[in-house]
């Protein structure tokens, strides 16, 4: 399968490219008062409202690498327009995912297995990687705890060029019941 890879701090992650609709640079998010921390806010992509998940928060990585990276959450509406931080730190990327019905049109089985979300959603990640072709057999079962990430979120791992690529279990990320 083809995997869209990206990094989150030191972590090298990937998701099935069938699930990805598009990728763009960080724009202004509209934060939602009272929403959980891992929801960064909402984004308008050509007229549809996308709920953006802060992947780092969702994977509970913030505690893990608190010292290394400072989350540059900013909101266009917020008092802090983030410009000062923009200079310090490179901009993050939005990976906008396809909705279940969109995936269904491409691959019904993937839609049933991996797509648990009906609303348009997206992930906020630090850096983008290449698209990698991965042999299904190369995917190994993930150990119980990987660098502080709960195995609930990981579908499997692949060894690539001395790096460990974590294939995300995207469904569990948007399933609010799956706690890290």
């Amino acid at each position, binding site marked *: 399968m083809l995997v869209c890879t990206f990094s989150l701090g030191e972590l090298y992650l990937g998701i099935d490219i069938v699930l990805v609709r598009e990728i763009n640079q960080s724009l202004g998010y509209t*934060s939602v008062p*009272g929403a959980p921390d891992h929801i960064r806010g*909402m984004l308008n992509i050509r007229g549809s*409202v996308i709920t953006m998940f802060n992947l780092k928060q969702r994977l509970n990585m913030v505690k893990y690498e608190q010292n290394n990276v400072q989350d540059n959450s900013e909101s266009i509406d917020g008092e802090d327009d983030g410009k000062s931080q923009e200079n310090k730190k490179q901009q993050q990327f939005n990976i906008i995912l396809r909705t279940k*019905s969109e995936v269904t049109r491409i691959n019904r089985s993937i839609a049933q297995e991996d797509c648990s979300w009906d*609303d348009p959603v997206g992930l906020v990640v630090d850096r983008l990687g290449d698209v990698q072709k991965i042999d299904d057999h190369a995917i190994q079962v993930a150990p119980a705890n990987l660098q502080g990430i709960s195995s609930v979120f990981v579908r499997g791992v692949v060894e690539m060029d001395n790096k460990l690529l974590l294939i995300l279990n995207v469904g569990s990320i948007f399933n609010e019941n799956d706690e890290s």
Partner: protein
Amino acid sequence: MSEEDDALIAMFIQESNEHLETIEPDLLILEEKGKDTDPAIINRMFRGVHTIKGTSGFFGLSNISNLSHTMENLLGKIRENVIIPTSEITDSLLAGMDKLTQMIGDVPNSESIDASAEKAVINALLEGGGGGEAKAKVKEEETQAEEEEANADEEEAHTEEEEKGVAVSQSGETQLAKVETTPQFPILENYPDEVSDAVHAGKHLFVIDVKLTGSNPQRQNTFKQFEQLIGPVGTLIATNPEINDDLNFLSCKDDILQILVSTVLELDLVCSLTELTDKNVRQVIIPKGFVKKKEVEKPDTAIEEAEDEDSEDESRPSKRKLRLLNEKLSSQANAPTGGAIAVPEKSTAKQPVVEETLRVSVSLLDELINMAGELVLIRNQLSRTVSTTTSNDPQAPLIQSLDSITSRIQAKVMHARMQQINVVFSKFPRVVRDLANKMKKKITLELRGGEVELDKSVIQHLGDPLTHMIRNVVDHAIELPEIRKAAGKPINGQVQLAAYHENGMVNIAMIDDGAGIDAEKIKAKAIEKGLITTKQSENMGEEDALALIFAPGFSMAKQVSDVSGRGVGMDVVRTNIEKLRGSVQITSKVGAGTNITLKLPLTLAIIPAMIISVRNHRFAIPEVGLVKIVRVVETELEDQIQMVYNAPVLRMQDMLLPLVDLADVLEMHVTWPDNSEKTERRARWLNRQIKKTKDSDEKTSADKDRRAKKNKVIYIMVINIGGNKFGIVVDNVLDSEEIVVKPLPSYFQGNVCFSATTILGDGSVALIIDYAGIMEKAKINFGNIEQSELAKRQGEMRSPLHEKQNIIILETGSGLRMGILTRMVRRVEKIRRKDIDLINDNHYVRYTDKTYRIILPGQVLGLEFDNSLEEIADDENKELCMVISNIPGLQAGLVFAKIVDTMDTYIDLDQQAIQAPGLYGSARLDEHVVLFPNISELFNMVEITAPPPESIWDGAGLKALVVDDTLFSRLMTSSYLKQADFEVTQAKDGETALELLKAEEFDLMVSDLNMPGMSGFDLVKETRETHNSEIPIIATTLFSSKALEFRCGQAGMVGCVPIMDKVRLMNIVESLKRQ
């Protein structure tokens, strides 16, 4: 067919449809009124039919023209009173009209539509003069016509079969074989989706045996007729034997075609509709557990589903098959069958373009809306770049045109989704008529508000629930004529279906004057069904009890109809309406009728909204329900906003408006440590704001220029929701925009404060505020406010002390409580005993670079206890409270052990019980006796005086009149003037004051403005009529404002000061003296 003809035919279709639209209701009137029908109505029908006849003749559409001719004849006879209209006659005319509608809807193929049956019925009536023999004749003619057709069809069938060759017969054989081996039809497992859908929509499944005779084309015809019959009320799911694309009906066993149908109608209704006996119609029992538990659909997905209906259809093989079947049938019908005119071949048999019939898929419209939205954003960005470059840009006009066109495109595209509710309503008169006839009831249906527009997706989902409701009304609510007569009601049951806008929702009310629903019986039934316990039912209000009929388990009960009530499928109504984010309300009165109101949102519609900001976050507030916006300058906040039961309220006209700070409700700043503090939050917010104001006041009085800039304002959005008004406090109102409502992502649906999202002009997403949610979250209790209003009014009756005072209650070391008006306090500070120094028998404390003289109230008042510091604080580290008065220049404070409370309350001051110098009096508050010391007098008693000696306010030998209904402030004002050696006379109201003014001469009058009976302004006016007309008058008021000061000036007063503001009062007195 030439283009010109096309255009002409299009006009004909449009015109004919208009006529037909008026004919149907007219026919219903004809039926109702019979021979008493207004001749104008009959004439109108006659003209309509006549026009259709004439025009269709002109185009050579002989089939239409023949039928309309026949109808015209009958109408003509009715017009001439030769035939008296009976229901039989209207039936026949309605049938004819239906046929006409069908033919006109499909002009190119109209020649092939069979209207002989309708014609025969009407002709029979014409000949029989409406007599009883008509029926027999009809039958005869019908069979005759059938036979004739059969002959023609057989010929046709021959040629067809020849064309198709052996293939047909072969497929026929295989199917025959299949039928024999097939077990009992239907096998529900083959159609899980359809069955589930039907069950969820509260439909029943029936197998209907349709007898097919004659040749294949004839059978096709019968099948098609059946399909037309059942089409409007149900769905064909499958047939047995399965009919393939070749439309071969010859394989039916015993010439019976079994058809599986889902419909909301019940067995008896299906029978009467199809005119079959219940032998031929069998209800299919759906085994329990067969239907998959469907997840509760989210409203937006429900809508999406509707939009994707087309694509979804493709995925359902059986449905598709049936559709193909129908297409095939109609295309076959297209084939020339021979007739008066040469019907063009199938390929060219295009329907002339009629605007109304243009179909565009909803998803396409949605895409267009999205793109139009994007266009607007681009336009906005473009116009921004242009305007920033130069003001005289040559491109400016271009941008302007782009601007206007973009707006228009957006508006039009949006509008394209809206449909009039008439689309749904218009079918009901007929449904009601047919059902009522079958049940032998007399019902008048009144439709109102058909022009109300709703989003197409909402309209689409309204049909089923409304049909349910209508059917229930006819079936259960409206009594039989005899019963109605016995009950003294008009024989005709009245059913009203009305749509109207309210609070940003569209309400659809169905009101009947039928039997009504007995809440007690409903309860009993619900207990029997185990839905509620006996105990629950005892505490259950009528409204809640009635709502039980929407409970899922309830409506499933077979015997519901004997509970005097509705019920069958009502849960489906509610489920459907809730899917549309609407709600259902029901009220009923036994014997008088029922009112069911559906409240539907304009979801996906465009709504006008105000864009507001709170803490720099933008939100949209729907303009519906927004009464007005109040702008409050922060410096005036204190005067306009009061606290009632710890909740800030805005005094607006005659009412108190509860306020909600949006930032607070949304928890947009510091999270509060404990939930229990929530109730206090609003109070704190106000205090915070007031404190801010005070701080800025102090600052700005020093620097007046800066004050103008710092005059921050807040806005209060006054909302009216269901008659309850409240105010939402926001930081800023930015814009008024027409916004497109987009569904709230499911991740935020737990948050009641938001109803949806929208995209703002600059492309960012904003949340739409849900009033009801805000109210719920903020726990606004309108009852409390009302109570306090009531208490206030009662208080006014009881004593003139109707103005609330904010007081601080403090406790001395021995637990004695004292109350001090907040207005007299600059601030309260915490000090320690060890910070207090004793110099010359006087206590001093250093605090923020200043030395304050402190006194113990107990000591000064000469109490036996509380007269030493040690008694107040046994430990020298213990914190004490120092109350610093706001007498200017006075560096002195009173020391107490602690603050007990602050409260807004009415002080019922008792001057008799406890009397002492330096004490106003006492009052009972919260079961405690509270002493009210006169702070300035206390300080005077220990010879602490402010630097500017009072001597300059020398009122010696002058007489002052103090008018105030509030004892407290009257005493205060008097004491100020007394200190300046005025001889003070007090009056408790305007009337008393006027008496005094008439009797004596005064040099000064200080009057409260707000008094019961004669107000301050009235008093001033009256004063001018006395010999004291030249007296200078100073107004005192609880809420001072620029406007009020101005009004006072206009009324001829020399000044207007806040109550108990000694300095300002005395300054005015001083300036008077100098003059």
